[in-house]
């Protein structure tokens, strides 16, 4: 026992302090662990620093240090006048700013553009902040009411009629086309080998056309009567309001449950009436500004917002069609989607500009901007369809089956159970599509529309501002604008993605 005690070791003084471990946090730690921890890394760091030195420093020098900030024409941006190698020529941007934002929109009417932009921001911001309530109402305002108001604000003009006149006109157009087709078949029957058959078919079509003509006759008669009176818009509006409200009331459940539908319909029509009165749409509205005067950022925003608003419904319909169990609809949707996704946007714009006018009746001219909008909507719609389809595929089958077990119809199942969940899944993808749509709007400058990039390019040819640095300055300005929009959207998409995946984070 004693040798154990003698061999026992009891320390009588403190252990000397060891040196602190190498710091691995903070700036010093970062430098040590991620920049200069090995010979290869040191070399790479130096190479990277050199790269930055030769790109960032000249850029900052060009944009800020060597830039010219004031002047009236090109002479102030020349090296001879300034006395140093001139960088960015900012007075050029100041002079061209109205053109880059409004295009040739008349100066006296520019408040309309500003008002539209303010409206858009006021409606869009609450939609983007997840915490704020009434998303459905807000989305309705932004996706339905805002485009209408924006059209009358930006383009101007008033209403010639309302729901009744439009329905009558549309039905009449449809009927005329049917009768035209019948007459074409009849004229073919004279020179064809299956003449008698064609004769029968042609007469059948004519019969259907005539039947429809008499069916819609009360409507067209009423419209013609209304056009005679002085207050055609308001009478028409009142009739439409009453009819639509009654339909909503009875479809909503009649006396038993239709009161809510009745109230919202009345509220909607009152709102429309206020807008019509405020903007004076019943007697001509605001002065018309033709779209060939629009330009700059205005066109970029109009094209992208219209694309966003129209492509989503197209995409949803196509995605549902692609999953449909009805063969013809499925095949059509697949072919439609694959066609638009398979061709470049620029050929779509060429198609919309040169081919579409040939497909429309001769007396029916479509505005150049509208043509481009149609092309872009169809193109983006096909891409959105694939996004929505991804969301639909992510919904478990059980959701639809449970809805069917509860006795919901296909429409109710889709609109109440499947679509809301599917769309929420794919918000980040939808926003990413919107980013590429926003970037793609620059292509309209190729088909003679002056968006931001088109106006910029046009401004380069102004001899008053032609200096060696004009092009670089213009591109720097436009690049900053594009970058702010796209970067903002991509950050928002990341934010939504993060929020949606909150349950999956650990």
């Amino acid at each position, binding site marked *: 026992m004693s040798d154990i005690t003698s061999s026992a070791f009891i320390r009588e003084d403190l252990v000397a302090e060891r040196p602190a471990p190498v710091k691995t946090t903070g700036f010093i730690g970062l430098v040590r662990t991620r920049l200069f921890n090995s010979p290869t890394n040191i070399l790479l760091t130096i190479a990277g620093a050199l790269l930055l030195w030769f790109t960032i420093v000249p850029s900052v020098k060009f944009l800020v240090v060597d830039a010219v900030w004031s002047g009236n024409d090109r002479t102030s941006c020349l090296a001879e006048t300034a006395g140093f190698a001139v960088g960015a020529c900012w007075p050029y941007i100041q002079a061209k700013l109205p053109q880059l934002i409004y295009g040739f929109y008349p100066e006296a009417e520019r408040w309309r553009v500003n008002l539209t932009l303010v409206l858009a921001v006021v409606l869009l911001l609450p939609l983007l902040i997840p915490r704020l309530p009434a998303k459905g109402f807000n989305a309705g305002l932004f996706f339905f009411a805002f485009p209408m108001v924006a059209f009358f604000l930006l383009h101007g003009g008033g209403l010639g009629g309302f729901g009744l006149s439009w329905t009558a006109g549309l039905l009449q157009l449809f009927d005329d086309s049917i009768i035209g087709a019948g007459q074409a078949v009849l004229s073919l029957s004279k020179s064809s080998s299956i003449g008698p058959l064609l004769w029968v078919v042609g007469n059948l079509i004519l019969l259907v056309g005539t039947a429809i003509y008499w069916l819609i006759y009360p409507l067209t008669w009423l419209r013609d009567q209304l056009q005679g009176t002085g207050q055609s818009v308001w009478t028409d509006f009142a009739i439409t309001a009453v009819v639509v409200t009654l339909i909503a009331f009875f479809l909503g459940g009649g006396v038993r449950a239709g009161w809510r539908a009745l109230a919202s319909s009345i509220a909607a029509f009152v709102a429309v009436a206020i807008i019509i009165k405020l903007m004076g749409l019943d007697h001509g509205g605001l002065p018309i500004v033709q779209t060939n005067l629009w330009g700059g950022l205005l066109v970029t925003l109009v094209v992208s917002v219209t694309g966003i608003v129209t492509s989503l419904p197209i995409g949803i319909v196509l995605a549902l069609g692609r999953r449909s169990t009805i063969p013809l*609809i499925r095949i*059509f949707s697949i072919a439609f989607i694959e066609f638009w996704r398979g061709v470049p946007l620029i050929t779509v714009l060429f198609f919309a500009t040169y081919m579409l006018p040939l497909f429309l009746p001769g007396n029916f001219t479509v505005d150049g901007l509208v043509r481009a909008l149609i092309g872009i909507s169809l193109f983006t719609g096909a891409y959105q369809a694939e996004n929505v389809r991804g969301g639909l595929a992510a919904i478990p089958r059980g959701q639809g089956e449970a809805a069917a077990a509860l006795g919901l119809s296909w429409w109710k199942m889709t609109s109440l159970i499947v679509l809301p969940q599917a769309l929420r899944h794919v918000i980040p993808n939808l926003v990413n599509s919107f980013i590429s749509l926003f970037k793609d709007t620059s292509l309209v400058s190729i088909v003679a529309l002056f968006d931001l990039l088109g106006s910029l390019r046009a401004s380069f040819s102004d001899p008053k501002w032609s200096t060696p640095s004009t092009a670089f300055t213009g591109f720097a300005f436009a690049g900053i604008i594009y970058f702010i929009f796209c*970067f903002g959207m991509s950050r928002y998409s990341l934010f939504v993605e993060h929020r949606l995946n909150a349950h999956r984070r650990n």
Partner: protein
Amino acid sequence: MSTEARKPPAQIALKIRRVLGGKTGWNGIAVQFAFAAILGWIAYEIVSNARTNLENQHIAAGFGFLRNNAGFDVNQTLISYTGSDTFLRVFMVGLLNTLIVSVVGIVFATTIGFIVALCRLSPNWLLSRIGELYVEIIRNLPLLFQILFWYLAVLAALPNPRQSISLLGIFFVSNRGLVVPSPIAESGFEAFLAVLALGIVASLALRFYARRALFQRGHLIRIWPYVLGLLFWLPLLTMLVFGPPFSFELPQLKGFNFAGGSRIIPEFVALALALSTYTAAFIAEIVRAGILSVHSGQMEAGASLGLSRGTTLRLIVVPQAMRVIVPPLTNQYLNLTKNSSLAVAIGYPDLVSVFAGTSLSQTGQAIEIIAMTMGVYLLISLITSAVMSIYGWRISRSLGA
């Protein structure tokens, strides 16, 4: 009393219902007929309107115009072309120009994309930030903006041919484009080409044999010295025996422009540059996501087996990452090819520019020309997606799923 099973009732109606209406039955059939009627009506409207409009504009429909003389010049042609050639020839010229800029763009985009992806994955903090900066800036600016930036700002700011920047005295950069030495075939050209082809075929056969030996018998055969010999030393030997395969014609400044050498037009340079840097940003993200998708345990397992870092990457990580990378990568290649149509903005003579642009405005045959142009792109993307679905099928088979 019969004991045999009752015959099932005739199901002809049911079968018709299934064929015509899918799972939805008679309802579905009714919807289909209504839908077909609407489609037919729209098609009829389009055809009849188009016919009247064409008659009013005195344009003869049909593809006969393809045999007419084009009568305009194209500033970059891969096949011989003069103004007196037909529109069909213009179509071919444009198609080849589209393909060449796409191929060049794809090669550079892949290279830059992989480099940027490696930068972003690098443990070096500064390098990964630079990679991120590149991707964010490039992805958030429109492609057309970048094309115009290179063409109107950067390339236009270059000096004129007389003051052109010379690289090693053989390449000359000016605002008229890039002038490079042009190769001219010499006497040894055929022999060189034949030997090179032989070397490639032999190397492929060798590789095939070595893989079979490895997988079936477990023999590891080191083939790279033989491949090096076949692909490098053998052609070199041929060159010594038969003389050099080609010589270079050096460009020389004469008067205001260059004589000799071949000129790469600035439109091509701007387009290829913008396409490759733009697509590279997307490729970098795809490659990064692919490599990150391989579980880190795979790397550790490779290390615990005693494989070196390089071998683990080559044999374990990259093959698995490739499965994730290849489909979206192909998609990006397709996008690049479609985006090359933006050439029309700067006047590079691609398919859209010379055919859907110049030829369309000269002949007015909008329907035929745009249909042909769209058809070409559609064909390219359909072929690509067919190849990709075969690839996907093979992958899923190899995974045993």
